[in-house]
């Protein structure tokens, strides 16, 4: 067997980088005859730019960013291929201590679920408007992120207009707690460990788990340059098989203690193993006194997660266009759908099954998503 070249993979120090990290650490890559060199990055912008300028062969990437980069929305236009989904969910919405107290005051008790907290927020926003206070700003990790989409869905659940009633600000995860504490933002949507950090330091309370909003919205994905997928199919196939083995390993609860120690190491996420383990098990302290547990808080493996369903890409496109208040274009929707590449996944793994679910996103509130009727979906969102 000829030696394969080393595949350089960029990642952000997040728990959802588990699959590429486990692919290396557990030897799944080696078993497939490939060498992966993991490179830790500090921003999604770096990840994107190093991928499109050939400094990375593949990357851990925000799912919406793979679509916008391919479509040329934002700041670059290079066709990318997404042959594998890395996770579903794992993010939370956290509110500042002050805003959380305002919600409690309105309700007379702590909010019990996503709908209740959103409805309470609606009343708080109304009061603040009436007294001439500035609008609430939410921190999200990137303009195009499933985090921003989740916040918008939650806001709508309470009858809040995400475009006019609140503001959004991009805040890198390591700065989220400080920004909450200083009042620059009053809420945020971010992955772990940053929500727990806010809770531990008394700066904020978690009000929503992402898994309460959707079953399997695409969060992070494996992204390649389209050109790499075409030129080096063998290397890509091996990479995908290694990722699939890693996904199964990461999903297995028996491995979570090992996985937590692996990810916690200084060269990866550099946090306490316990923090990682909490997120893996879906059991978090949501405020000073209460905890909450959700078994599907974060998932790495399953047909609905790993198989790059083009319908998910259509959903991302619809959400991106809606976020930008742009009209939908049929050709852009097609272009978006073609970024997700089940053909690569199937060729690598021998899969020939199509997903059973009618609904590839599984939103738990709001309009059902029909990938054949994006306009209907958007109209329902805009109400």
């Amino acid at each position, binding site marked *: 067997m000829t030696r394969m070249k080393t595949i350089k993979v960029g990642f952000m120090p997040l728990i959802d980088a588990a699959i590429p990290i486990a692919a290396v650490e557990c030897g799944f890559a080696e078993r497939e005859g490939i060498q992966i060199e993991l490179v830790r990055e500090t921003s999604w*912008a770096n990840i994107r730019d190093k991928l499109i300028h050939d400094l990375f062969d593949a990357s851990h990437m925000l799912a919406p960013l793979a679509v916008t980069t391919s479509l040329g929305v*934002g700041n670059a236009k290079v066709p990318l291929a997404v042959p594998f989904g890395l996770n579903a969910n794992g993010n939370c919405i956290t509110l500042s201590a002050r805003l959380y107290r305002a919600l409690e005051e309105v309700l007379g008790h702590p909010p019990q679920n996503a709908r209740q907290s959103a409805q309470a927020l609606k009343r708080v926003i109304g009061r603040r408007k009436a007294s001439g206070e500035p609008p609430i700003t939410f921190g999200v990790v990137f303009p195009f992120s499933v985090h921003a989409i989740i916040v918008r869905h939650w806001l709508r659940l309470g009858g809040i207009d995400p475009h006019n009633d609140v503001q959004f600000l991009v805040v890198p995860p390591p700065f989220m707690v400080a920004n909450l504490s200083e009042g*620059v933002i009053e809420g945020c949507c971010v992955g772990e460990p940053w929500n727990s950090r806010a809770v531990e330091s008394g700066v904020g309370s978690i009000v929503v788990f992402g898994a309460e909003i959707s079953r399997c919205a695409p969060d992070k994905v494996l992204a390649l340059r389209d050109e790499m997928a075409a030129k080096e199919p063998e290397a890509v196939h091996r990479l995908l098989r290694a990722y699939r083995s890693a996904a199964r390993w990461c999903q297995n609860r028996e491995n979570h203690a090992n996985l937590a120690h692996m990810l916690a190491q200084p060269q990866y996420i550099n946090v306490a193993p316990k923090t990682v383990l909490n997120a893996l098990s879906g059991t978090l302290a949501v405020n000073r006194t209460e905890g909450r547990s959700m078994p599907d808080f974060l998932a790495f493996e399953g047909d609905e997660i790993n198989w790059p369903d083009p319908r998910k890409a259509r959903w991302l496109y619809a959400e991106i266009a809606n976020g930008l208040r742009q009209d939908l274009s049929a050709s852009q929707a097609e272009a978006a759908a073609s970024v997700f590449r089940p053909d690569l996944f199937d060729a690598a793994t021998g899969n020939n099954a199509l997903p059973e679910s009618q609904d590839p996103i599984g939103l738990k509130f709001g309009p059902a998503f029909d990938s054949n009727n994006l306009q209907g979906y958007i109209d329902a969102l805009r109400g």
Partner: protein
Amino acid sequence: MTDQASILIIDENHVRAAIIQEGLREAGHANVRWLNETANLLKRIVDIDPDVIIIDLESPNRDVLEQMFQVSRVVRRPIAMFVDQSDSISIRDAMLAGVSAYVVDGLKKERVKHILDMCVQRFEIFSRMEEELHEAKTALADRKVIERAKGILMTAKSLSEQDAYAMMRKAAMDQKRRLAEIARAIVMAEGMLK
């Protein structure tokens, strides 16, 4: 000749920022500002309203700047990353050096390239300085540990300084390891045997 383009440097590393500012001023760019405090970054950028933004790639704040591309309400003038396909090589060089640039639309490409080239150069100079500093520090630490190990051997085995040194050299050559590694092992072993 001075160039009036307003250039904003976002870099939390004071030394590197100073080196870049100096380079740009020497090259005739009089209008250079430096931000080392990045709280409320987007608002600060809007207030300064620069023509060119230079930011180091180590900064997570690059993602904050992304918001400038889509929200035209946020900035008065459209800003693009210094990317077009023909510039791919210089972008790549810049990224390898650890720097990225954002440019207000309409600024002449040659002017921008000149600024970016200068920054890339200065980033590289800074990296070399850092490397040299690191090497010097390592050399100093090596020398210290070798001295200590030598002392340990001299006492433990009643050797002369020269013989103690020779013994470590031989061990290093036999095991194909660095002298400092052998010395560290001796120092560590002594600590454990105490």
